[in-house]
C-alpha cells in the first residue's frame, strides 16, 4: 500500500483559518491547478469506505466549507498517484468547475427525502416515426427521473430561498425521490421555518429533511 494524493474539495478565495487535518490525520494543503485551487491530503493508504471514514470526510468538508467563500466537496475516493494526474483531470474541466463554484458561493445544501404516493404519469400521444418515438420515450424517462411534481406545493413556498435545486426520482416503494436544495447561508433559518409550515400542503406526503450540508449535489456532471 502506498500513499496517495486525496482530493477533498475544489475551492475559491482565501481560507479564513488553518486548513487542519484530513481523514487520516494528515495535514491538508492548498494546491493550484491552472486557475483552480484544490484542497489535497496524502493519507498513508487509500481510505476504506466504512462509516467512520465517510463521516470523517464529511466533517472535513464541513470544516473547509466554513473556511472558504466557495467550495465544492469531492466524492469519496477521488485520489491520484501524483499531482500531474490531477492536473490532467482537472484542467480540461476548469470552466465547468469554476461555474459550479460560482453557483455554490455562500450557499449550503439541504437534502429532502420525499415519501408517499406518486402522482399518476400523464398519458402521451405517440408522434412521429419509430425512431422519433423511441427517443421521445427516452427523453420522457430522463425528464421524469429528474422531476418530483409531487412537491410543487412545497417548492412554491421555498422558491424565494432557493438558488438552485437538483431532483432525483427513485420510485422505490414509498420513497418517491430526493430533492437537493441550494440555499444562501443567511436564509437557512427562513428556509427551515418555511419548510416546517409548508409540509402540510403535500396531501399526506412526508419529507425527511437534513442539513445544512456542504453542496455535494451541485458539483458539475462528470459525464457530458
Amino acid at each position, binding site marked *: 500500500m502506498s500513499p496517495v494524493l486525496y482530493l477533498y474539495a475544489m475551492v475559491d478565495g482565501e481560507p479564513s483559518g488553518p486548513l487542519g487535518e484530513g481523514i487520516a490525520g494528515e495535514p491538508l494543503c492548498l494546491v493550484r491547478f491552472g486557475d483552480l485551487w484544490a484542497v489535497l491530503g496524502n493519507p498513508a493508504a487509500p481510505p476504506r469506505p466504512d462509516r467512520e471514514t465517510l463521516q470523517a470526510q464529511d466533517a472535513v468538508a464541513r470544516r473547509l466549507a466554513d473556511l472558504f467563500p466557495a467550495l465544492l466537496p469531492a466524492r469519496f*475516493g477521488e485520489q491520484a498517484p501524483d499531482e500531474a494526474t490531477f492536473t490532467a483531470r482537472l484542467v480540461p474541466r476548469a470552466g465547468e468547475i469554476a461555474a459550479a463554484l460560482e453557483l455554490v458561493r455562500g450557499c449550503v445544501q439541504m437534502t429532502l427525502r420525499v415519501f408517499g404516493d406518486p402522482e399518476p404519469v400523464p398519458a402521451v400521444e405517440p408522434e*412521429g416515426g419509430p425512431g422519433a418515438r423511441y427517443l421521445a420515450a427516452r427523453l420522457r424517462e430522463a425528464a421524469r427521473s429528474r422531476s418530483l411534481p409531487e412537491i410543487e406545493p412545497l417548492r412554491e413556498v421555498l422558491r424565494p430561498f432557493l438558488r438552485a435545486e437538483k431532483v432525483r426520482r427513485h420510485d422505490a416503494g414509498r420513497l418517491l425521490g430526493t430533492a437537493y436544495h441550494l440555499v444562501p447561508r443567511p436564509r437557512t433559518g427562513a428556509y427551515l421555518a418555511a419548510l416546517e409550515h409548508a409540509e402540510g400542503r403535500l396531501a399526506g406526503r412526508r419529507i425527511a429533511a437534513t442539513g445544512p450540508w456542504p453542496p455535494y449535489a451541485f458539483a458539475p456532471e462528470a459525464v457530458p
Partner: protein
Amino acid sequence: MSQREEIALQIQELEDLRAEIERQAASQAPHWNADPEEVQRSVARLVLALVEFLRKLMERQAIRRMEAGTLAPEEIENLGLALMKLEETLHDIARRFGLNPEDLNLDLGPLGKLI
C-alpha cells in the same frame, strides 16, 4: 409511516451502493477480470458491455440535442432508429452467449453510475 419504515426504504435505495463500496474497498479503480474458464463468454460480455456503455453515452447526447432543438426531424428519426437497432442487436448477440441484458451493465465505477 414510522421512522423505522422510512429508514428501511432509504436502505433499499442505497442497496446499489454495496457494489460500489466493495469495489472501492478492493482497490483504487474498478477491476474487471475475464474468467479464464469461460474466456470466450467473458470477452463477449466485456465487448458487448463496452458497446452498450458507448450506446448509452450516445443516446444521452442525442436526447440532450433533441431537447436543445439542434437536431432536424429526420436526424431525430434516424438517430432514434439507429440507437434502437443497436440496442436490439446487442441484446440478440448477448442472448446467443447466454447473457441477459443486465449482464451488459458492467460496473464501470463512477462513470457507469453516472449514465
